[in-house]
Structures are given as C-alpha cells and as structure tokens.
C-alpha cells in the first residue's frame, strides 16, 4: 500500500529554481504591502472625509476585501476584468488582487488605531499652527503605525501565503507556481511541496522576527 520511495535528491536538485520563485513571491508580497499601505491610508482618509460618495467607495472596498475569498479577488483582477477587455499579466493580476485585500484589511486596522488616539492630539497640533494635514502626518500617522504594527506584520505574512493563489490565474514564476510546474515534470509531489512548505515557513518566520526587531528599534517610547 505504501510503496512511494522518497527521492529527495531529485527534488533538491530543483532547489535553485524554487529559490528564484521565492524571490518573486517576496517581490509580490512586499510590493502588495507597500502599495496596500498607501491605499489603506487613502481609504482611511476617505472614510474620515465629509463626502458621502468617498465614504461609500471606501466602505465598499473594505467590505468586499474582508468578506470575500482572496482567491475570488485575484480571479476577478484577472479573468473578471478581462470580460471588459482589460488584460493584465498573471503577475499584475496577482499583485492587484493581494494589494486590494491588504488595503481593505489594513484600512480596518488603521481605523481601530485612529480610534485609540485621542482627538486632543490633533487639536494640540492645530493649536501650534499646524494644518490638519500636518497634524495627521506628523502626529497621528506615526502613532497609528505603531498601534497597527502587529496587524501589519500579520498581513505581510498573509500576503506571502496568498501568492500561492496566483496559480489560478496562470502565475508560474512564484514559489508555488514553480513548484507546481516542477511537479508536473518530475512527479516528486511530496518532496517538492515539502520543500516549498519549508521555504514558505522560513520566509514568514524571518518576517515575524524581523518585524519584532524593527519594532524594538523604532518604538522606544
């Protein structure tokens, strides 16, 4: 019944290609986080604005991002928009999908962080002659980032794992895509995916430990 012979050497020979894939995975995750943070900030400001349409757009984005499968969001960013004649490469679609998801989750976190900062902080800034935007930028945002730092770290880990969904839109240069292609070639299924799992694990561990180090450097108050 159990007659599978492990052939680690065959799988390990493919390690360099998998590591190249890991670099692409990190690229997508990092980009999606950076752009996601910017969009989350914009969504947060939209929610704070007095404009009903802006508020509604932000709320819709956040609701969809948090209450539909990430797979669906990535699929939409590729095949969904293709229905309207918009064609993105698998890389771009994956990036858009994950960024959309990140921005929604982060905006929600930012909102919670904002609630934790008393109104009197911004008022103190304005009393010193700072504009609302300056108060936001120099007084509120730094405190928001500290409060949201742990959730942001979690989202970064999540972004790395979400890259695996790229295979559904034809992505084959990231860690998961590469592994799947190699599997089709060699049929060393267990070995290849076990190695991929270890690489994913190492990446996410480095992120959490790195974040902890950065936090201890950055937030000394």
């Amino acid at each position, binding site marked *: 019944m159990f007659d599978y012979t492990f052939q680690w050497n065959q799988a390990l020979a493919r390690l360099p290609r998998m590591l190249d894939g890991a670099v692409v995975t990190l690229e997508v995750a990092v980009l999606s986080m950076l752009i996601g943070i910017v969009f989350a900030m914009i969504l947060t400001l939209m929610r704070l604005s007095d404009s009903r349409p802006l508020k509604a757009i932000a709320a819709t984005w956040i609701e969809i991002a948090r209450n539909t499968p990430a797979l669906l969001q990535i699929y939409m960013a590729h095949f969904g928009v293709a229905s309207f004649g918009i064609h993105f490469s698998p890389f771009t679609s994956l990036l858009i999908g994950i960024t959309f998801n990140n921005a929604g989750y982060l905006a929600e976190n930012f909102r919670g962080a904002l609630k934790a900062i008393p109104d009197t902080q911004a008022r*103190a800034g304005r009393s010193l002659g*700072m504009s609302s935007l300056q108060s936001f930028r120099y007084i509120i945002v730094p405190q928001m980032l500290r409060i949201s730092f742990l959730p942001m770290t979690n989202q970064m880990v999540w972004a790395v794992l979400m890259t695996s969904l790229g295979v559904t839109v034809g992505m084959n240069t990231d860690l998961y895509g590469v592994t799947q292609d190699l599997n089709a070639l060699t049929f060393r299924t267990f070995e290849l995916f076990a190695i991929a799992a270890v690489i994913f694990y190492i990446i996410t561990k480095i992120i959490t430990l790195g974040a902890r180090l950065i936090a201890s450097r950055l937030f000394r108050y």
Partner: protein
Amino acid sequence: MIEIQNVHKSFGQLEVLKGIDLTVSKGEVVTVIGGSGSGKSTLLTCINGLEPINSGKILVDGVEVHAKSTNVNALRQKIGIVFQQWNAFPHLTVIENVILAPRKVLGMGKAEAEAIAEKQLRHVGLGDKLTTYPSRLSGGQQQRMAIARALAMSPDYMLFDEVTSALDPQLVGEVLETLKMLAEEGMTMICVTHEMGFARDVSNRVAYFHKGIMAEIGAPAQLFGDPQHPETRSFLASVR
C-alpha cells in the same frame, strides 16, 4: 491686543457663550474663574479659532479670527494654548515635541529649532530631560513641556485652560511657578483656573463666568474683596 466683542456661541441648541465682551491689552494677565460648564474653555478655543462662533467678533491685533479671509494657521502661531490635558506627543522625545511646530510650521532649520527648544525647556526647568520620552515624565513635567512647546513658537499671547486641574496636588506648585514667571516676564495671558491664590497674586484682572455670561470682572482685590454679583459671592464662598 485681544478684543472680544459680543460673542455668542452655541453647540446645537445649547448656548454656551451669551454675549461676551472682553479686551485684553498687551502685557496684561486676565484670569477667568467660574463653575464647570460656564463656557470658560469654549471661550479660549474660540479665541484661537479652534471653534467657530455664531455672532460677534474676536480680533487679535486687529485681525478678525473668524473672518473667512483669515489664515488661522498663521494666527495660531501668535496664540499659544495649553490645555488641562497636556497632550504630549508620545512618539516624540521632549525636544522633538518642542521642535516639531517650529520646523514644520515656521520652516526653521534643525539646529536653530533645537537651540530655541533647549532654551525654552531650560526655562521651564526641563533642561535635563531633552531626550526623554514623555511617558517617563510626571504630569507636572509633561505640562511644563507643553508650555515650552507653545513658547517655542514665540507667541504674543498665551491661553491656559486649567493647566493644573489634572495634576496631583504636589505637582501643582511647579506649574503655577512657571506661569508666574511668564507673567512677570510680561507675557499677555488669559488663564482659566481654579487656583484662587494664583488668580489673586498674578492677575491684573479676574473675570467671573456664570452660565455663559461674564458676570463680573475687576482687579483681584475688588473681585475677591468686594464681589458685586451675588453669584460671584456664592461661587467664592463655595471654593474657599
């Protein structure tokens, strides 16, 4: 000069200021006393334009605070305000708290801003706390830092809103000493306070607020010694 002319201010249905008239000249110290909810804080936040008013006028050096054409950010550089809750910026060290506005609002260079901040911080007795984070300071120290932060903008006027009310009793003295020092240096100040001793010793005039009206104003000796308004009498009796 700060000129407050027949100012009315409401929050929704609630009229909080019911026609306030008050002129504060350069170098004058006016303290405002009165029961809680009488509109004292609201008046201060109207003076620096943090709150809009419904009617009347407030002029600071002849500039109408609530006129549409007025640049309130520029105006606020002239008017320092310190609140009961000192609002230290927790993510910045003491000196960073103080240089933030001079750098971002006045566009000052780092070295110049730091020199000014250091001078102001020494002035309020925090010369040895420059690189400390506010969370390591006592309430009195944080409040003095907030005063230095306001002074670093070289304001012509200072507004103080019950700056000792949130402090432990043993810390009140050090902050009052700082205010006294500023008064002696000739700073124009409006101080809302519950410290009757301070009001008596430091102010040129004391104003008594009652339910949105300035019921009485006069020299400390007159207001404390011979209050004219029955409400002033009962208020003073209650705080003694």
